[in-house]
């Protein structure tokens, strides 16, 4: 049964590779250029602001360290869920996905708090070059996290409502997981360049 499903999902290709997965890797690679552009724009503009607040006045490293830890743990949760699917362990799969969704939502909560705090401290998109480039970069990252949460929630509900089909769900969660880990590695770079080297 599983073999039939896997074959239906993955017909023979000239490369022998799953085209969905290969296409997704190409997409993720293009995303590195997308975020690379925003990161370089931030790095160039962050010190060019004429009026404050400036990065060193406002960035909160302890708070962001916790949110970074939350996002890193969400990556561990998604591979735990994937491992559960591959072993046919439905309970582990559901717990892994649920933990990923909750941790991702927690990360977004931290980001919402940070944005609100910055707004009250006088930093908006229009305040200065630091504000514009910071909100654009971290805002787009947050949007990616939101898309990842929705995607994983759909997969979670699919496994929760129906029977778990390891061959089908493993590929689906693996590809969604690739997206999630990509969002994680982008944050690893953002955390170092934007926060720790502020």
């Amino acid at each position, binding site marked *: 049964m599983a073999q039939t499903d896997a074959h239906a999902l993955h017909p*023979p290709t000239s*490369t*022998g*590779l*799953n085209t969905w*997965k*290969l296409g997704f*890797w*190409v997409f*993720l*690679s*293009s995303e*590195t*250029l997308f*975020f*690379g*552009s925003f*990161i*370089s*724009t931030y*790095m*160039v503009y962050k010190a060019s602001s004429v009026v404050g607040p400036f990065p060193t006045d406002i960035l909160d*490293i*302890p708070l962001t*360290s916790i949110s*970074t*830890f939350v996002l*890193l*743990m969400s*990556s*561990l949760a*998604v*591979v*735990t869920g*994937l*491992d559960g699917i*591959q072993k046919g362990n439905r309970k582990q799969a559901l717990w892994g996905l649920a933990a990923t969704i909750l941790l991702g939502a927690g990360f977004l909560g931290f980001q919402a708090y940070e944005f609100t705090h910055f707004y009250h401290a006088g930093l908006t998109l229009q305040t200065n070059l630091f504000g514009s480039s910071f909100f654009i970069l971290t805002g787009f990252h947050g949007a990616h996290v939101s898309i990842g949460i929705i995607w994983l929630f759909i997969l979670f509900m699919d496994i929760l409502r129906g029977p778990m089909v390891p061959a089908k769900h493993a590929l689906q969660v*693996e590809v969604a*997981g*690739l997206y999630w*880990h*990509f969002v*994680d*590695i982008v944050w*690893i*770079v953002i*955390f*170092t*360049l934007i926060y*720790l*080297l502020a």
Partner: protein
Amino acid sequence: MAQETHQVEHAHAEGGHASLRTYVIVGVILTIVTAIEVAISYIPALESVEVPLLLALSFGKFMLVVLFYMHLKFDSKIFSRVFYALTLLAALLVSGLLLFHVVLGEYRT
């Protein structure tokens, strides 16, 4: 038969993953490295080496996630080549723009 063997070989090349134990170990390492990064940013004595040290640690975390959580260590080399090539291009874009900015800044002053 030969075709089946070929498909199985490809499936193996594409689908290998680490064990749950390895995932947990990687998670612990990522947490420890993040704590070290934060500590470095607070130690004034390390200010002179802060930038290369933090960049190196960040790169290490990046590679851990890519190799183990994204399975590039076990997956087909084609995925690795595509991803590393464009990531390198993005890194060159960032460093090139920064270099241009620094050179332009010196020219202006």
